[in-house]
């Protein structure tokens, strides 16, 4: 027994004998502390659906003969808008009367308007006529108490998304059953009586209902029964539950959840969802996934090191205790993380889903990569891309698009799906554990080392994986390598030459991405042809998220490629180039390998950017110049340092620094909002500061590479 415990102690010791593993352990511990003691309910993001503007909302005020007050100098008037913009290009418009009696301006030039916010105008029948004649109008925000007779009915048959005051609805109860086109209703419950829901449910095709309770008017209600918070009685719950088309009700359920202890299942099949969700809860998901990748790396690095060692093949029962220790460490850590997640209001099963997700995913990738089968290796590409997608989807903006299902799932309201996923995750992990012995045998016979990540024999032949002929991989990387000749020692020629020695071909990667996009479009086109849906539905996942996966790969691949090439740089540093030129050329080569990432960064930043020239310029400074420069500086860690753990540590620090910087700016900006031109000024200042910092980083890294010993 003592021999056995001593054996386990020895195995555990090996975990803190590797600096890289130690570094990962520190990161894991910090992540756990963040999850276990970090704030839960603050920093909320609105997820309750509102009428959707398909593009930039042009905010305009009515024209006035009197000069605008000083504080409203920056406001755009209706006539100014018409001077600057072709009305045909405007798809979303928000109108506000500068003076209370201002009439609604002429809307007929805006024939492509989809979204309209009517501010506080007193509408006439003519106005209603004109609004209803806008051919593409589908989302309407009305803040008027009183409407002309029949207006609500006409609006309700025109648009599918409507935001209005409950009081207005009360005024026109007889028109409610005729609002046949409304699918989303956002109801401001200001001063409304609780029985308003009885009228709301008369909207025949309602699918989503958002209930807003303004917090600042508490105690000033028209009647004692008016809504101060959402507190539905059994009858009202039944009304919602029994609505034939209603799917989701968004509201602040705090009182019902915590005081009346009403369960969400009381609404089923309607989902009662929160109107706002804490960003900390969203970040806890990515935090857990990231932490479990780290945990998986720790365990698999050590497990692999032991499995691949010669001792594993000759010492009897060598693998079993190592596997037990690895599984023990993994289970203990996974349990701790799972418990920490319960703080965020997640159900037990979804917590387990999250904890097991990345280990299962990583297991599949590792096994596919080591399997020796070409098609399995290629499968890892879409797998890694989808991992990037996953991370981007759980960012707060993208999260809104999947919020209802995601939150419902995280609350544990979909237990069967959770159990199925857990089953798949555990099966993946067990499968990889059982496969590991066979894979290590295969590797022992046919592979060489992954530099610095395992104690494999570096002299061992890598023959096996190169014996297969006519592989697409060779075509992609070997294309154009033949017929090279000396073309002079100019920097450009040499940079081109150094890059030929890499397996990463940005152009090939771009071709691949373009093909993916084309196939995606083709698929979407066929789908909308068959189903009659829009090609780009308004509630689609943002394009930035869709393209985020391939872009993430474009960002990471150069660093990975140069990492793999590090070993050959000892001999390559003896090419006829002085040390200074060698470093300069390598650095430029590394930088040039990022061109695809630069395009992606610029593209992604502009997809969701505001359209003003100054804002675009500011975003370009940040994402078109500063971010790529910083990225190059970060990737140059693979050239600057020798030891793996130093490289990893350096890259993590350089990745966290800008995130922390911008997060602190965002927090500061949120607590001290300035708005308007000062926001743009701040964006410019941030851009210029970031560029200066990125240049500084590159200078520092360049001199570090210059001092590097290549031997």
């Amino acid at each position, binding site marked *: 027994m003592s021999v056995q415990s001593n054996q386990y102690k020895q195995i555990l010791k090996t975990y803190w004998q590797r600096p890289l593993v130690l570094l990962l352990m520190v990161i894991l511990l910090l992540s756990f502390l963040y999850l276990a003691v970090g704030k839960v309910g603050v920093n909320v993001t609105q997820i309750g659906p509102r009428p959707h503007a398909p593009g930039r909302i042009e905010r305009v005020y009515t024209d006035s003969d009197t000069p605008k007050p000083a504080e409203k100098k920056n406001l755009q008037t209706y006539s100014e808008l018409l001077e600057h913009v072709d009305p045909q290009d405007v798809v979303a418009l928000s109108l506000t009367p500068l003076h209370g009696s201002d009439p609604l301006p002429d809307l007929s030039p805006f024939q492509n308007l989809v979204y309209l916010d009517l501010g506080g105008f007193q509408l006439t029948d003519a106005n209603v006529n004109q609004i209803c004649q806008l051919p593409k109008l589908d989302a309407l925000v009305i803040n008027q108490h009183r409407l002309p007779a029949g207006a609500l009915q006409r609006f309700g048959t025109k648009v599918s998304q409507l935001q209005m005051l409950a009081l207005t609805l009360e005024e026109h109860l007889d028109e409610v059953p005729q609002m046949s086109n409304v699918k989303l209703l956002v109801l401001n419950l200001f001063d409304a009586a609780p029985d308003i829901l009885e009228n709301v449910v008369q909207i025949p095709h309602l699918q989503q209902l958002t209930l807003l309770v303004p917090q600042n008017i508490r105690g000033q209600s028209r009647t004692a029964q008016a809504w101060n918070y959402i507190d539905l009685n059994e009858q009202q719950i039944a009304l919602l539950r029994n609505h034939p088309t209603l799917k989701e009700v968004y509201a602040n359920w705090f009182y019902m959840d915590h005081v009346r202890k009403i369960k969400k299942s009381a609404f089923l099949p309607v989902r009662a969802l929160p109107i706002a969700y804490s960003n900390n809860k969203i970040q806890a998901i990515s935090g857990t996934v990231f932490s479990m990748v780290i945990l998986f790396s720790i365990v698999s690095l050590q497990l692999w090191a032991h499995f691949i060692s010669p001792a594993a093949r000759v010492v009897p029962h060598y693998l079993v205790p190592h596997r037990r220790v690895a599984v023990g460490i993994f289970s203990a850590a996974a349990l701790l993380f799972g418990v920490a997640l319960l703080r965020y209001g997640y159900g037990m099963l979804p917590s387990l889903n999250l904890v097991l997700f990345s280990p299962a995913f990583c297991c599949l990738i590792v096994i596919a990569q080591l399997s020796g089968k070409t098609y399995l290796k290629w499968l890892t590409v879409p797998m890694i891309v989808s991992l990037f997608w996953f991370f981007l989807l759980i960012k707060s903006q993208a999260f809104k698009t999947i919020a209802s299902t995601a939150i419902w799932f995280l609350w544990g309201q979909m237990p069967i799906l959770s159990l199925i996923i857990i089953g798949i995750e555990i099966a993946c992990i067990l499968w990889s554990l059982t496969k590991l012995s066979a894979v290590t045998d295969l590797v022992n016979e046919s592979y060489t080392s992954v530099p610095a990540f395992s104690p494999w024999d570096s002299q061992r032949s890598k023959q096996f994986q*190169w014996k297969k002929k006519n592989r697409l991989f060779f075509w992609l990387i070997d294309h154009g390598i033949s017929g090279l000749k*000396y073309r002079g020692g100019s920097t450009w020629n040499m940079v081109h030459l150094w890059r030929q020695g890499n397996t990463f071909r940005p152009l090939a990667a771009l071709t691949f991405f373009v093909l993916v996009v084309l196939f995606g479009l083709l698929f979407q086109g066929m789908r909308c042809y068959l189903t009659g849906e829009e090609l780009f539905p308004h509630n689609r996942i943002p394009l930035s998220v869709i393209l985020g996966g391939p872009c993430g790969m474009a960002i990471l691949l150069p660093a990975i490629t140069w990492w793999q090439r590090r070993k050959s740089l*000892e*001999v390559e540093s003896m090419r006829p180039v*002085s040390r200074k030129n060698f470093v300069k050329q390598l650095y430029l080569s590394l930088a040039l390998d990022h061109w695809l990432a630069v395009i992606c960064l610029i593209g992604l930043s502009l997809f969701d950017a505001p359209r003003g020239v100054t804002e675009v310029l500011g975003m370009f400074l940040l994402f078109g110049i500063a971010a790529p420069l910083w990225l190059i500086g970060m990737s140059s860690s693979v050239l600057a340092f020798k030891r793996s753990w130093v490289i990893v540590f350096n890259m993590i620090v350089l990745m966290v620094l800008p995130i922390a910087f911008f997060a602190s700016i965002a927090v500061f900006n949120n607590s001290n909002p300035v708005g308007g031109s000062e926001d743009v000024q701040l964006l410019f200042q941030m851009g210029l500061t970031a560029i200066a910092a990125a240049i500084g980083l590159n200078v520092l890294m360049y001199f570090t590479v210059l001092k590097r*010993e290549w031997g």
Partner: protein
Amino acid sequence: MKPTIIQAANLHKQFNDNQVLTGLDLKIESGQIVGLLGTNGSGKSTLIKCVLGLLKPTSGTSTVFNENSWDLSASAKSRLGYVSQEFTLFPWMTVKAMTEYTGAFYEHWDDAYVTRLMKEWNLNEKQRVGVLSVGQRQKLAVILALGHHPELLILDEPVASLDPVARRQFLQSLIEFTEDEENTILFSTHITSDLERVASHVVFLEEGNIGFSGELDLLKHHVKRVRISAEQDLPLRLNFPGTLRSQVDGRYALLAVKNFQTEAMETFTQELNATFTVEDLNLEEIFLELSGVSTHAEAEVTV
């Protein structure tokens, strides 16, 4: 006087607390074929890397073609070839592409010479480098180092993975390499028979410093094995100057001696009332004696 190709003075190299080179002085002149010998961890690879500027000396100086090793110019580098211990190549390239890729860095790359060497060494230029065996890849690495006709060739354990035929071919190519021109070679190896076949000079490294540096013949001349036979029992300690190792067994003794001089030995044995015979050693035996690990001679002492 021949020009100096490599020179190191008071060279120190330390990795954390581990002092690998301890004030080493070395001078290699043009045309010399220098074999670098030493036990594992004696600092052979570190010396080579310091000489090439792949490692920065902790202190001291190292020059190649009279240029500071750490900051070699492009022209100096174009005059030298290097084969590392690991000879990392690009496995996805074909042999042909690999030679073309390497050649594209050199203004005076000799395609015909490279093709000839590949043919002689039975390398298929259409094969991927990843498919080659370790020995074949080592051959390719050597060819890539020779393709631009360097004046100085530095090889770190170049024959470790080669079969006897390939080793013989390799040695032949080294001889050719130095026959035609005043080329210089520095190579480290554990295979002393190879070194004996081609080296003109030997540098023996001992705990980070030079144990011996000079012509191979001089080394053989200086290190001898001496058998002493006396009328009565010999003292357990024989204090003969330059003794590397001594083993006494009654009336017989066996000595390995550095800087051997016949006159001194005659005087020494006369004092002991003994006779002696001198034996030449081959390089491997000298290596073992100098490194203090010889054991096989123990059995011979009583013969």
